[in-house]
């Protein structure tokens, strides 16, 4: 039931990508009761996730960048 802060951070990160199991999340919640630092970290981590979603970030794929470089090299 007791987990280290490293383990807590690991679960917390996985939870941001919905990759933490229910049992892991229970252990995490339990850890927060005894560790306010991790609770605070988790709060900020979740905030980061929601900011990333809110910003609806877009990136070019590697394929698109490669093509862009090729086009760019033609004019150089």
């Amino acid at each position, binding site marked *: 039931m007791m987990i280290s802060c490293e383990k807590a951070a690991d679960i917390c990160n996985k939870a*941001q990508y919905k990759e933490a199991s229910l049992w892991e999340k229970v252990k995490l919640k339990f850890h927060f009761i005894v560790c306010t630092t991790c609770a605070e970290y988790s709060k900020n981590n979740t905030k980061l996730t929601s900011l990333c979603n*809110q910003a609806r970030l877009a990136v*070019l794929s590697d394929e698109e960048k490669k093509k862009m470089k090729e086009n760019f090299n033609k004019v*150089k």
Partner: protein
Amino acid sequence: MKIKNLNPNKWVDLYADYLFNYAVTRVSDTEIAKDLVQDTFIAGLKSAKNFKGESAERTWLIAILKRKIIDHYRKSNSKKGKAEVRMSYNSQLDAEGNWMEERIADPNSNFENNILENEELGLAIQNCISKLPKKQAQVFTMKTIQGMETEDICNALEINASNLWVMIHRARTSLMGCLNQNWF
């Protein structure tokens, strides 16, 4: 002091995503945005001799991109002139109330503000990502923005899952610190 400090070979790797985000929020079409970014790089190369080194490379490229976006709208507007525009004051003929009042924007709406804020936020995050070590930025982008599966990223980059989570952890911690001042 170096007067000119341009490095076109690295432009695509360093700035393509940042410029793409900037463009995509303004033209809301990924294909057009991509073309505009490409045009910006080419225009930047052609006018590289005009770069005075007063601003950062990225700021300079953004300035070019801004002009490309304006040009894009000018072009599409001149096409639009040929179409007929019909506007009715109200589509429902029997609607009650004052039409003028109904036309005026809702003062309580913060729709526009949200768009502006999200755009700034997007650039702020992109800026913070660009400050991360290259590998961390790559892993974070693949996982968070492209939404790739852990396994696929591990295969693509030839790392194991615990390596990936360590990098994700470092990237997220740095990003929290970087965004801390304005967004938390």
